[in-house]
């Protein structure tokens, strides 16, 4: 059997207050395995603001700077400025925020930090809604999903707006590195984090983070859901390095229904609505492939 490349050392202690099957637990675990002990994590309001445990306990082996909901980008800029003026080097500064804290309320501060080329890795763990407050829609909730504020009801009032494409938003900031990662592919995950660590500037990581309570998903199936998200092209694994798009896992291109049917949040969708999702996913996938081809042909930054 091939030896795994995942570092053995753990930086998350037992005691996280995350729900059973929480994807965000694994996101933090793999992230810290990739980065090691010389890391400071700044966390705004989100599930991970409570998951390290009540004061004075802390289930992480690295220091945490908690910050206000919309302030992660500013906090990591302030941390880096302080370390720089103090001459403290070789410290990974990580902003670790949920999707609401990134694509909605925290977008401005993150945009600022990216524009200022803050030396940091910003990780958005995407559970596709405001899960810590109890499953309210966010700008990152996908089209068709049930949440408590898109409650379907008798009027078919699910989320009728598309998910914000945060990777494209960050791509437009011309940052040196952006990548999507999945808890179903820890080796790819860790490789990308280690790559980000070696690149100077602002790096963005979009981590798919299945949420059993919010997705109405069996807690035993969260890794499976993450795997199917990749296989169905709902959540493609790719990276954008200095503008160059590279798909890191093609996936089998399974029908999206394989992914959707695991989750109660999509159970109200009709077949025609599911095929609408399929068409949108297919179009996005083709676009991504074209981007990859274009980057290869144009020799961007080679």
């Amino acid at each position: 059997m091939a030896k795994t490349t995942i570092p053995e050392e753990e930086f998350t202690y037992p005691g996280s207050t995350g729900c059973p099957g929480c994807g965000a637990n694994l996101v933090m675990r793999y992230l810290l395995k990739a980065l090691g002990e010389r890391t400071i994590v700044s966390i705004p309001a989100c599930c991970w603001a409570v998951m390290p445990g009540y004061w004075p306990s802390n289930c992480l082996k690295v220091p945490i700077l908690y910050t206000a909901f919309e302030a992660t980008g500013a906090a990591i800029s302030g941390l880096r400025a302080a370390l720089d003026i103090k001459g403290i080097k070789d410290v990974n500064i990580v902003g670790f925020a949920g999707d609401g804290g990134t694509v909605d309320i925290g977008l401005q501060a993150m945009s600022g930090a990216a524009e200022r080329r803050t030396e940091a890795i910003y990780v958005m763990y995407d559970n596709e809604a405001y899960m810590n407050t109890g499953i309210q829609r966010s700008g990152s909730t996908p089209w068709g999903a049930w949440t408590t504020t898109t409650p379907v009801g008798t009027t078919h009032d699910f989320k009728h707006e598309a998910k914000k494409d945060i990777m494209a938003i960050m791509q437009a900031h011309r940052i040196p590195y952006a990548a999507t990662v999945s808890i179903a592919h820890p080796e790819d995950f860790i490789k990308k984090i280690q790559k980000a660590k070696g690149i100077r500037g602002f790096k963005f990581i979009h981590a798919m983070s299945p949420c059993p309570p919010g997705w109405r998903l069996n807690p035993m199936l969260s890794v499976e859901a993450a795997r199917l998200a990749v296989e169905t092209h709902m959540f493609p694994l790719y990276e954008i390095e200095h503008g160059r798009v590279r798909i890191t896992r093609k996936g089998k291109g399974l029908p999206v229904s394989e992914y959707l049917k695991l989750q109660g949040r999509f159970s109200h969708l009709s077949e025609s609505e599911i095929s609408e999702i399929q068409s949108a996913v297919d179009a996005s996938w083709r676009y991504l492939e074209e981007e990859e081809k274009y980057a290869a042909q144009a020799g961007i930054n080679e």
Partner: protein
Amino acid sequence: MTGNYASAYGAKLSRAEVIAAYPITPQTSIVEKLAEFVSTGELNAKFVPVESEHSAMAACIAAETAGARTYTATSSHGLTLMHEVLMWASGARLPIVMTNVSRAMAPPWSVWVDHMDSIAQRDTGWLQFFCQSNQEVLDTIIMAYKICESKGVMLPAMIIEDAFILSHTSEPVDIPDQEMVDSFLPAYAPEFKIEVGKPMGFGSLVKPDQYMEFRYKAMLGMKAAHDRILRVEQEFKQVFGREHGGLLELYRCENAEVVLLTAGSVAATAKDVVDSMRSKGVPVGLARVRAFRPFPHDEIRALGSRVAGLGVLDRSYTFGAAGAMFSEVKASLYNCPKRPVTKNYIAGLGGRDITPKTIERVFEDIQLVTKRGEESEVEWVDVAGLPRWWR
């Protein structure tokens, strides 16, 4: 130099290490000057050009948590945008020092002075110093770092300069020697800071059986700030030969029958009026609230028990109540066995001039009210359509 340059020099002399700021009228020349100091190497600091005031304060919080001395400056809408993170700074017990160029809130738009922005932050856990002169702005920034960074206090401070009246008006200001400031103000060395190898959480979740103790300790810090302000000012005086009046500056209050209490630059005008009235034999005095937080309750009680009338001139208004200083003053006096007659004057909002003539009329009104009792507790001064007070 202008009040804004005095602020910039105060931050430079205090050797601020991280400055995160966002431009807003009339604060801009503070951060422009600091950016210049950094760019010429005169100040060894990181200047973080953030994209909002909320981020300015959030970045200062992060930098201060990592052990850097931080400074920022803002005004009006910028300050009120910071409101959430102002509470974060004090809750996290971070001795950040900030200048607020006090300016009216919109709508209607106004870039001119009043204290609404600062007063609206009174419950955020910041020490608040209202300044009367540009020299005081510079000196108070240096003193504020020393006050706030002491172990018993560990709270942030807001240095308030009046928009344009101080921020853009030049006065002679003595710039102290860097060496003297260095010996007065040692480098920031907090007991706790965020650093690798020490896996602590800063700002963790606490349960109801622990939260109150954190707040109680912050309250003790603010309480300790009272004596610390006085002690640091005495030390400052020994080194630099200047003082600015502690928490409550009293001007010619000895044997005064009535005293006007106010804050900010208008106190300078009021002192002139006191001089001229005193020269005519009218026993009046001026009290200037220098520290609004912590509020000088004891000093006001001592003053209140020996005067017959105490007028309070607020440059802001708390809707549904009165001027905030007036409410505080009345609260101070309530348990005094001997209380003066009090009356509140609201004046100078949105940069309206408060002239010597107005202050003279206020003094006359206090005298009148003291003799025959109160008619109305709160009066708006120099407002069109109010015949009694319209100039």
